[in-house]
């Protein structure tokens, strides 16, 4: 049962129950939708990008504990950071969740996100943890939301 406790750590359960940066972002400049058809998880990510910096971020949607907490942790982790920093963190996160189970993960590189390293024991769940990150990447490369006229 250790692996289940590794997966559903208190931090993850907390972010699942009280997701951070959850809700609308009225002055968003960028957005993307993520969908994991396997489990039906749906996520909308909203970004406010000023210059090269993510100054605002929020998400909405339904999902399992892993995808929701990962989205919540991600929004906290990239808020206020530059696009380059967010992209670098994406790479580090991706490396962490794809590191073989018998090898140590670089916890320092990912900071708080290290709580999600437990998904490696559950190959079917890696997608849940990655959904928010792939959606972030899509949002950053999407054309900006056209400015509202009213």
């Amino acid at each position, binding site marked *: 049962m250790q692996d289940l406790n590794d997966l559903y750590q208190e931090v993850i359960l907390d972010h699942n129950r009280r997701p951070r940066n959850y809700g609308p972002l009225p002055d968003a400049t960028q957005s993307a939708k993520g969908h994991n058809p396997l*489990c*039906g998880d749906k996520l909308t990510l909203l970004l406010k990008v000023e210059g090269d910096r993510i100054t605002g971020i929020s998400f909405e949607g*339904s999902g*399992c504990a*892993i995808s929701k907490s990962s989205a919540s942790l991600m929004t906290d982790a990239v808020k206020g950071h530059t696009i380059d920093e967010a992209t670098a963190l994406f790479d580090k996160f991706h490396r962490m969740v794809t590191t073989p189970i018998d090898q140590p993960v670089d916890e320092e590189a990912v900071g708080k996100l290290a709580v999600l390293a437990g998904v490696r024991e559950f190959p079917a*769940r890696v997608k849940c943890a990655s959904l928010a990150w792939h959606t972030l990447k899509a949002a950053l490369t999407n054309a900006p939301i056209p400015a509202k006229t009213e």
Partner: protein
Amino acid sequence: MTPHAASASPASPLDVVAVRDQFPALHQLVHGKPLAYLDNAATTQKPQVVLDALRNYYERDNANVHRGVHALSERATASYESARRSVQRFLNARSEREIIFTRNATESINLVARAWGDWQLRPGDEVLITAMEHHSNIVPWQMACARTGAILKVAPIDDRGDVILEEFATLLTPRTKMLAVVHLSNALGTINPIEDMIAAARRVGATVLIDGSQAAYHMAVDVQALDPDFYVLTGHKVYGPTGIGVLYGRESLLQACPPFLGGGDMISSVTFEKSEWNELPYKFEAGTPNIADAIGLGAAIEFVRGIGFDAIGAHESMLLAYATARLSSVPGLTIIGTARRKASVVSFVMDDLHPHDIGTIVDREGVAIRTGHHCAQPVMDRFGIPATARASLAMYNTTDDIDALVVALDRVRQLLG
């Protein structure tokens, strides 16, 4: 197949211990716990006789069918055709010519949507399905409608998961050229009143396809009594191998219908000017068929016939009643799908716990269930949920398996609160 209150010591004529002995895969530990395999609607386990049939074919009889004059080819052809006869008897079809081997139910439906659909559908014609169809009985019709200009209509379902028959009756009109309906819903367990639906379709002159993918392992099917034009099933859900499916088609309709795929085996003569189609069923079996798995399916069907749907049905009714009662007592659990006539499929949600988390945690207790939308996204949308967890019970399941699920669900609650 209607649920009764669970009795304390359920008696059923099926010797479940002896049945379980026939299924090697059931006897294993998963994450250190005895396996409780409750994902039969996705695929059933295979009895030893099926494994032996596959092995025997490859070890002794491996040869192409309908081609060789040598001993191996004759044996392979005899086994392959004997499997077809097994399917014919299983469905009570009039003739072996009405039994076409395909890859799975999906291919069977696509075959009809292509060969029959492109032949018969005209702009403005209607194809009627229900809101509880598997994607495989939705998408081929959407594609056929896009090709032909026909229109897809959907009969809605109510909160229990029954087709709303008044609405169905309104939607079924002389414009309806095809009625394509699932016999038994994989997501809800609903057994549709297809006898009445087929009769109604007859009155407006519609052709009928029944998706029997799930029905085939729960209940006896008699295509002469039901009288659909097409009935499809998929081998891996009747204790047979993957990669083999069946299309039953009324002989006169199959005769008239143009072929689907062209190639070897489906022709009687070929010149560069013109080819003559082979006789039924070979006209619809282009190329070397899946010989081994057809033989495996034949073995599976004989196995099921040997046990009999009376015994299977009684056992599964008992399991459904037990599972319904036990799961209903789990705090926060709601069963999705409470149709009047239901098979041993129990879909459920638990408060705000996501089915995916439930599935992962119970797996660690050795309990295999399906979580997700079950390839029936419109059903999930109808109930306003992203997904369900689903326990689907087969002839080899026991009340112990259900108890293991209930204990595992307690564990989910402990862990996720």
